[in-house]
């Protein structure tokens, strides 16, 4: 085989101290170095480059090799030296050799700035996001919120496989109850409500004025006041537009915490854990406010709030000690019951019952007797 160009070049007798790549081609040039007031790089006596010591920088290299570049030369021009003596001589002359390489000072800067960024993100999560949620929520148009509600409604119906219950007498009783609460609470008649045939004992409010009660909760209830209080609580969420606010709050928090840990889709374990800590404390506040609203509404109707607490207690049992209270989204049931009990003590419940006993029976059987009427 024919010898290639670089071999032919290097075959010349004076074997010099270094290998030079000029940055324009990958040709390996064996060069002689001369250290005077600058570094002269010569190939076969011809001057290839002249590097000023102050401009010479170290580049990454395997151990045992000194690889140099120069600020004034083409950016990829490299000089490689293996001779220990020559290396030492050059290192002694080039006082800014390490200047552009990552160093200890650079790391300190990174740590400092990261901590500053982390502190600012945490502050924004704790104070900025709730404030933004507070201010942005009223700006969201009702029509958009209603759309969101429609979406959530469709999903809820799929997840719980719940069909709306439509027993005529029960429906009438339910509407009467909701109507009374709604008027007392000062909400307009755009509120949609219904009972879903699902055994899960729960009730919820969706954005855009939707309140749903699950049949499971209705079954556990013993009198109209219990259900009325729960509905009033959900109307409180509507009144405060809590779903919308929570959406903005959760979205913002996930995003920012994700930013901190480098996963902006917000799905990592750490992201999830820290987010649930922050958002659940926020949601506990919202629940407490909705409870306040429920208590006020019930008292305006002259009815006690305590039965609601009793119903919740019947559903959840004693909660303290079961899980981490810091990560739960609702206040402890016993605390809520105690609060309602205390609020009732202030004034006697002297209003008319919200539903007659016939209406109450109709409401209780709103789902069960859809086909064969009793």
């Amino acid at each position, binding site marked *: 085989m024919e010898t290639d160009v670089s071999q032919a070049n290097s075959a010349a007798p004076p074997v010099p101290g270094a290998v030079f790549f000029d940055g324009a081609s990958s040709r390996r040039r064996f060069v002689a170095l*001369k250290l005077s007031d600058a570094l002269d790089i010569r190939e076969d006596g011809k001057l290839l480059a002249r590097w000023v010591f102050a401009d010479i920088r170290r580049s990454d290299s395997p151990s045992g090799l000194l690889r140099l570049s120069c600020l004034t030369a083409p950016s990829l021009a490299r000089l490689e030296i293996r001779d220990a003596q020559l290396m030492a001589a050059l290192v002694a002359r080039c006082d800014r050799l390490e200047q552009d390489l990552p160093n200890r000072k650079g790391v300190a800067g990174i740590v400092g700035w990261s901590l500053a960024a982390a502190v600012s993100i945490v502050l924004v999560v704790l104070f900025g996001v709730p404030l933004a949620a507070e201010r942005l929520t009223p700006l969201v148009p009702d029509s958009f919120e209603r759309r969101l509600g429609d979406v959530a409604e469709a999903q809820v119906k799929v997840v719980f496989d719940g069909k709306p219950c439509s027993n005529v007498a029960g429906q009438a009783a339910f509407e009467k109850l909701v109507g009374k609460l709604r008027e007392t609470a000062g909400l307009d008649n755009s509120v949609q409500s219904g009972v879903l045939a699902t055994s899960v004992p729960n009730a919820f409010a969706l954005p855009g004025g939707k309140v749903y009660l699950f049949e499971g909760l209705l079954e556990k209830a013993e009198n109209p006041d219990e259900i009325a209080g729960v509905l009033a609580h959900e109307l409180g969420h509507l009144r405060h537009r809590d779903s919308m606010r929570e959406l903005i709050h959760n979205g913002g928090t996930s995003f920012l915490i994700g930013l901190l840990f480098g996963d902006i889709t917000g799905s990592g374990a750490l992201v999830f854990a820290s987010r649930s800590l922050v958002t659940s404390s926020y949601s506990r506040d919202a629940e407490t406010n909705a409870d306040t609203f429920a208590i006020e509404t019930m008292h305006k109707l002259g009815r006690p709030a305590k039965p609601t607490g009793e119903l919740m207690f019947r559903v959840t049992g004693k909660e303290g000690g079961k899980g981490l209270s810091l990560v739960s989204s609702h206040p402890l049931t016993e605390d809520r019951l105690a609060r309602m009990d205390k609020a009732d003590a202030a004034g006697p419940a002297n209003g008319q019952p919200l539903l007659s006993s016939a209406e109450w029976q109709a409401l209780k059987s709103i789902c069960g007797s859809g086909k064969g009427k009793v």
Partner: protein
Amino acid sequence: MNDMSWTPPGPPQLPPQPVPPPMPVAFSGSRNEFFRLVARGAGLELVTLGFYRFWLTTDIRRHLWSNTLIDGDGPEYTGRGKELMIGFLVALAILMPIYLGYFLIGIEAEHLKAFASLPLVAFFYLFGQFAIYRARRYRLTRTVWRGVRFWMSGSGWIYALKASLWGLLVVITLGLALPWREAALERYKMRHSYYGDLQGSFEGRGWDFFKRGWWLWPLMPFALVTVFGPFAYAAFKAIEWRWWLSGIRFGEVRLESTMRRSALIGLYWKVIGWAMLLGTLFSAYLALCIFLAASINGSSIADFFRTEAFARSIPLMVLPGIGYLALALAMNVVMRVYLMRDLWVRVLSSTIVHNIEAAANVTARGELANALGEGFADGLDVAGF
């Protein structure tokens, strides 16, 4: 003649010539040094809450690149952590409105039918493939060998489209089309890769890959649920590496890999062993935490769980958190040592370069690419080296 009496200039005694290694590709880095690098990096990641990852990634690449020797010369990684960080921030600025748009479109889709927005995930798959292409472009343009850089042309979006369509085919064929997908994508990538003015190409064919690895396909369902899994995965990766490397060309330069099917099995089992060891340590630590918290509380462990004290105990919330972080960082170190450094060394030691003389006089060409792709890859969690 010479004004410096203490230097050996001009034509002095023969300096030791770089001895060409017996194999054209070798690795000279010290394992301890790499361990120190990643251990220190993990500590700094903890202190900086993860922001240090850009610089750690850069340092890992610098170490791996500069200690690799091809025909006696080591490549150089010229990327910097700052570039990766800026890329990440720009990617973030672009992704933010996209996420918002995604959310709004999702609502409209859900309006029509519950869960109709799920196909939109496909859009992010496309985006992830784009990120993979552009990230590779960044890494390639930061790779310099003999004073000439590698570079890449081509379009990230065309690649993403190809990758997605092939991906669909792979799903339809239950994985059988995978070799052809990889061959087609690699052909696109290599056709647009250059070393100076030397154009790359990929000669590996899907059929060859299929012939070597088809027997793994029927075993997969079995492998997924048994101890056989890591063996199958290691064999698959070894076959893939060998096939991929053996197909790479730059002009007349040709790579060949002699990697055996069993070459990577040990690596994966070592990682599993470490994971089990660390997991055991973590469990023991958790038990200790509970015991400590209970004794601070002054109650027996059974009582401790029965009462509310369990939920209110601050040490019981903080200590496991610290333990979890330590576990995650230790796992990171293990993965980086075995699945980056050791894997790198094993792959290199089985690689032979043919006709390297064709790269002896290559003219420099090509522009630097920005780190936006790396930023997207980081943000979307689709990673590479």
